[in-house]
């Protein structure tokens, strides 16, 4: 069955440090992949999206992610974390165009310490 796994429920980093949030998917084909961010008491906002092509995609606010078919992964990275990045991050996968469902991971809660 298709699935998305975010193995880290919580991550804590110091402001200015680099960040990697992990996402692994389970699917036999090439998926469409997304990272969303959820700030407190708000809906989800798109950070970046991957369609088949360049494996490294750039998003908003300095975020980028790298798709690896061999590892079935789509990890999110940021070179220098800011306190405003304190939020919950969701990885999502869509299996093919025309399929209605996005499958979301359970989310990674990021805490930024000064």
């Amino acid at each position, binding site marked *: 069955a298709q699935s*998305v796994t975010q193995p880290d429920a919580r991550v804590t980093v110091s402001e200015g440090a680099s960040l990697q949030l992990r996402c692994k998917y389970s699917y036999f084909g090439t998926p*469409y992949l*997304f990272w*969303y961010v959820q700030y407190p*008491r*708000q*809906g*989800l*906002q*798109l950070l970046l*999206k991957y*369609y088949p092509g360049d494996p490294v995609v750039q998003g908003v606010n300095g975020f980028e992610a790298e798709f690896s078919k061999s590892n079935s992964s789509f990890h999110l990275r940021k070179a220098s974390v800011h306190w405003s990045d304190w939020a919950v991050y*969701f990885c999502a996968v*869509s*299996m*093919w*165009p*025309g*399929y*209605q*469902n*996005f499958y*979301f*991971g*359970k*989310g990674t809660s990021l805490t930024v310490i000064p």
Partner: protein
Amino acid sequence: EAAVTQSPRNKVAVTGGKVTLSCNQTNNHNNMYWYRQDTGHGLRLIHYSYGAGSTEKGDIPDGYKASRPSQENFSLILELATPSQTSVYFCASGEVPGYAEQFFGPGTRLTVL
């Protein structure tokens, strides 16, 4: 500015009562979705719609109905609310199904006592 809005933002209901959650989008998207978010589960799809007059079951439709009377509006209906339906509900709209991003509303926090 294109947006997805939800009402109410917070709702307390009694067990066995009827609850209607409303969603309005100005994105002019054909597709709309209802999710619930629970700790440890992420977001799970309840119902979705391809356009006015259509509703389809998602992964967890039991206990929920949906209504799409117009392009802009999509409602989620709990005919007989139960405490297990206490959750945060998100509405979203999108263009090409499963391909383009979905745009989310701010959520409705529902508590069923």
